[in-house]
């Protein structure tokens, strides 16, 4: 099989080939390593490439499968995590000079579970510094958008979005504190899921904000994201925020049927700053979902405008607390924007933080009300990717007035803990031809319903099958 065919196949297509020994894990890993070698100098998605270890693991997988020890649908498949997930014995930089030589003595729960499932670590992915830097700097420079190298892949899981879109790895892990999985997924034309708070363990994941951070899967198809979540979800004694909630079989949600599903569409606020081209793509997607059987419901999210400042105060206060020692001892090594944000956050009072948590309670109550009248809430996923040199502000960073506040379509899910998924729903008329995304949110721990509606939409469209013009 030609390497170019392998690179853009889904897990659903590759896994049976591996299981039936029609494709060797070694052949597969080599194809992706070759693509990384050819494309990464342009896209800059990887900080570290674990070539030798990956090939060694691939040979081991090959032996295991040949001996009848097939572990499941991820066995023999390459993956890469954002470089703030600790990997034992492998450098974990957080995209920062401060931790550029850190070699953890422990493994994050997520990477441990993927390794246990037989997936093969192929490298560590670029990101905004500590998930809160600018889109322009970082330890190794910015990742670039494979659809147009002059554009940003968005952050902070910038390398995760870019690597999957460019066919450098089929499965990636990102983290999301205010949209950092979903925004790059949108900008790179792939699928990204922020699970429910507590669904996926954060043990071994460098903190940005204890109560807003989430870890989640990124891939080209909804089905692949579902398989990846299946492997990493569930309680973890090493993370007391990981919930003891049963993990269902997500493949059962991939039915293609959404008849009778109540799809909430916001009637105000969230579309306010969405470009006409993006809104048109979203309206077409909504119309298609209605054709597929969804029942459209008008929804108003009360107090939606509060979410931005609530998120900003919680995030920056917790980040300043987490980085207190780093800021004091290594402030000079931090990217200027990161340092500035952490220092400014030291001026928040405890009363501000508690007030933000009280308003968070109000917003969570509101989402409970919203999900009594709909099963899924559709929200925009922002506009197309910005130019790289225009992206001063990282997704997870608080916006500084006088920059106009954005519609808070991402961080409402972080503030309230509900799951949210983004998938491609069109492209700009171009040039440049950049992906556009749609977002769905659901009740806590109801990722299955997100997979149900997203898979139905993806089965009826082909946006996810397009490949960026950048090839090796």
């Amino acid at each position, binding site marked *: 099989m030609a390497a170019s065919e392998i690179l853009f196949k889904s897990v659903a297509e590759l896994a049976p080939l591996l299981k039936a020994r029609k494709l060797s894990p070694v052949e597969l890993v080599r194809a992706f390593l070759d693509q990384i070698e050819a494309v990464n100098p342009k896209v800059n998605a990887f900080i570290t490439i674990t070539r030798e270890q990956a090939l060694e693991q691939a040979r081991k997988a090959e032996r295991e499968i040949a001996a009848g020890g097939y572990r499941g649908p991820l066995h023999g498949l390459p993956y890469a995590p954002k470089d703030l997930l600790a990997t034992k014995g492998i450098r974990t930089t957080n995209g920062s000079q401060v931790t550029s030589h850190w070699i953890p003595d422990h493994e994050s729960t997520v990477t441990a579970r993927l390794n246990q499932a037989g997936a093969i670590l192929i490298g560590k992915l670029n990101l905004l510094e500590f998930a809160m830097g600018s889109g322009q700097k970082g330890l190794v420079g910015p990742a670039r958008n494979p659809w147009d190298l002059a554009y940003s892949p968005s952050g902070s899981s910038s390398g995760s979005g870019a690597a999957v879109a460019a066919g450098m790895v089929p499965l990636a892990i990102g983290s999301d504190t205010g949209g950092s999985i979903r925004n790059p997924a949108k900008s790179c034309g792939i699928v990204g899921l922020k699970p429910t708070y507590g669904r996926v363990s954060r043990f071994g994941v460098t903190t940005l904000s204890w109560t807003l951070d989430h870890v989640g899967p990124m891939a080209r198809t909804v089905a692949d994201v579902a398989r990846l979540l299946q492997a990493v979800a569930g309680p973890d004694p090493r993370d007391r925020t990981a919930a003891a*909630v049963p993990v269902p079989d997500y493949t059962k949600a991939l039915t293609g049927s959404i008849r009778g599903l109540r799809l909430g569409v916001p009637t105000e606020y969230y579309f306010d700053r969405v470009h006409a081209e993006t809104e048109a793509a979203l309206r077409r997607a909504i119309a298609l979902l209605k054709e597929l059987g969804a029942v459209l419901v008008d929804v108003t999210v009360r107090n939606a405008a509060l979410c931005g400042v609530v998120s900003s105060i919680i995030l920056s206060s917790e980040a300043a607390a987490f980085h207190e020692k780093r800021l004091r001892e290594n402030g000079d090594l931090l990217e200027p924007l990161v340092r*500035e944000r952490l220092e400014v956050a030291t001026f928040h009072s405890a009363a501000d933080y508690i007030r933000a*948590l009280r308003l968070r309670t109000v917003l969570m109550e509101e989402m409970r009300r919203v999900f009594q009248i709909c099963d899924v809430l559709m929200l925009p996923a922002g506009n197309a990717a910005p130019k790289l040199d225009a992206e001063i502000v990282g997704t997870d960073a608080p916006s500084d007035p006088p920059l106009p506040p954005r519609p808070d379509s991402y961080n409402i899910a972080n503030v309230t803990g509900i799951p949210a998924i983004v998938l491609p729903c069109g492209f700009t008329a171009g040039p440049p031809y950049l992906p556009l995304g749609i977002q769905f949110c659901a009740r806590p721990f109801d990722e299955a319903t997100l997979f149900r509606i997203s898979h139905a939409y993806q089965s009826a469209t082909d946006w996810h099958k397009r490949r960026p013009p950048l090839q090796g």
Partner: protein
Amino acid sequence: MTVSRRRLLQSLALTGVGNPAVEGAEPAIALDVLRNVSAAHGANLSDDRLRVASPVLERRLPQLRAFREVEIEDTVTPTQGILDK
């Protein structure tokens, strides 16, 4: 469990949303004030760092003021565990 919608809209107006004229209307924060607050919070930022933080804080002040003015019912408690599990 609500906050006053009228008050919220007033507050948003205070932040300068849709009204660029409001931006920059805040008086400058004296360096001495920042130095004292920073010391009280235990951060002890240098004057050089305070000069970096100062314009950002000044820009944010209207938004923070609006945030602090949102009325919340007394029955509303801070979120503890963020979800009922």
